[in-house]
């Protein structure tokens, strides 16, 4: 499978200006950064690694998927959910503030094969890279018929669903509390989609959602690619901090999310180990 990513393209680390900042829902922020290099190089599924302060506390950079690029303006967007200290700093940043940003990082999504329709399954903030992917799949030279599913807890968390649905040919919005769209879990609405058949499925969201999506795709024999998250140190493959367990024998047991991912073929991921890690006890 071919990748959107030009493997020879470099990565950058530089002071970058926040040029637009909009709170799009309670706890959700759309951030746009001025950085022609990253805007030109970034492909769907890649991420940026943002240093949220110029001091050394909080220490580590924070990773965020690229949600879209504006090549004319030389800017790119990130959709961020406020979680802890780092995202709080970004949430309070005024436009005009500079942040040192590394990117684009990671492998990005592989291009789907020419056969069949494409299903995108987003859970919560996982919609961000899928918006970028859906947009790319509607560019003339990559054109595919795209069916989007987007599940979240509440209406607020179904954040940027308009952007997502606008880039899909079909769209299904689902909330756990039924406050908008259909009620339930996004994975409840996947079986009919898989029965209709598809060339390929891409998913991004909470780990347990991805595990369920992967299982359904395996049963339906539909290729499935997932973008996963993990605590990161370096973001460039040097520290081996960000691994996930892989179905492989012995010493090949782990792969790096930052470099070998964040997109993985769902078949190679050891979902059983991930499930164990996600639930206490």
């Amino acid at each position, binding site marked *: 499978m071919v990748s959107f990513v030009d493997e020879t393209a470099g990565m950058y680390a530089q002071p970058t200006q926040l040029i637009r900042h909009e709170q799009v829902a309670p706890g959700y922020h759309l951030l746009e950064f001025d950085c022609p290099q990253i805007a030109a190089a970034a492909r769907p599924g890649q991420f940026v690694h943002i240093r949220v302060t110029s001091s050394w506390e909080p220490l580590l950079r924070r990773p965020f998927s690229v949600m879209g690029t504006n090549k004319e303006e030389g800017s790119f967007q990130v959709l961020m959910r406020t979680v802890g200290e780092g995202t709080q700093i970004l949430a309070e940043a005024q436009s005009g503030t500079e942040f040192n940003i590394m990117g684009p990082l990671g492998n990005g999504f592989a291009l789907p094969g020419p056969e069949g329709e494409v299903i995108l399954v987003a859970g919560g903030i996982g919609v961000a890279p899928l918006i970028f992917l859906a947009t790319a799949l509607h560019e003339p030279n990559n054109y595919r018929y795209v069916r989007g599913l987007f599940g979240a807890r509440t209406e607020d968390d179904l954040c940027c669903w308009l952007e997502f649905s606008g880039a899909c040919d079909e769209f299904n919005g689902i909330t756990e509390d039924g406050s908008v769209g259909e009620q339930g879990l996004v994975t409840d609405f996947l079986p009919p989609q898989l029965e209709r058949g598809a060339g390929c499925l891409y998913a991004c969201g909470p780990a347990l959602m991805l595990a369920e999506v992967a299982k359904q795709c395996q049963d339906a024999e539909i290729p499935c690619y997932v973008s996963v998250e993990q605590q990161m140190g370096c973001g460039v493959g040097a520290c081996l901090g960000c691994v996930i367990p892989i179905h492989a024998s012995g*010493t090949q047991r782990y792969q790096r999310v930052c470099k070998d991912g964040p997109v993985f073929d769902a078949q190679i991921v050891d979902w059983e180990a991930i499930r164990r890690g996600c639930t206490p006890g």
Partner: protein
Amino acid sequence: MAAPQVDLSVELAGLSLANPVLVASGTFGYGTEYADLVNISRLGGICTKTVTLEPRAGNPPPRICETPAGMLNAIGLQNPGVDVFISEKMPALRELGVPIIVNIAGESVADYVSLAERLSDCADIAALELNLSCPNVKRGGMEFGIRSELTKQVVAAVREVTKLPLIAKLSPNVTNIVGIGEAARDGGADALSLINTLLAMSIDIDRCRPLLANVTGGLSGPAIRPVAVRMVWEVAQAVDLPIIGMGGITSAADALEFIMAGATAVAVGTANFVEPTVAERIINDLESFCQQTGVAHVADLIGAAHSSSDAGGLP
């Protein structure tokens, strides 16, 4: 007036380093990961990620987490093994044109000896760094570095099979760091690296369990700098070996603390993750510091803070 020339070079265990700023083992991969971002030829040298005799898968995730001014890691020495290291990693490392210090660890004295033997036959290795201090593996690792008898034994055994300069990397998780440093010297080490990470842990209170799958991990970053400086200070006073100081270095000022405490060189670790070009910046700023303070040779600052200490001061 042109700025005066400053000599940044230092001699360490028979190596001539263009400057005293290295990157620390496990924080710079195998040299190539940062190639897009860093002018690697400026570095004083690279300590590579610990390599073991056999390939190792490492620990399950989560392997890292953030702490106040620091981070925990429990990588568990994931590495492809020495054979793959020599065949696949060394060719690129060798191209970088800076001294390559290969860091090794074993589960037994025999492991260290075999590693040293194989690496001694490999061209372009500047020195071996013996990791006696990894807190994140079940067997070997820190075991060696917290007992002076074992420290001496490992170093002495490796000393017999290699002519490469030997650097013993010590664990800070000990009552008496000087005793361990002396043991490494007695075993025949040419230099000491200190410190490795402090054994530590965090708990995820929402899930009521350790944050790292390995339960404990190693604390690194600015948080540990004062402990590291103290250990360098103590060992420099007592053990007549050059020291590579590390632990939380983020700036030339930090590096100078280690040098004035007695380190001949320093290594930058965790800070690479945050600012990949940090080592270059430190090298430039060290040069400026020497220019501004009229220090002709950075080596003149090694241990310089030992000569004076008086009392009663106001800030």
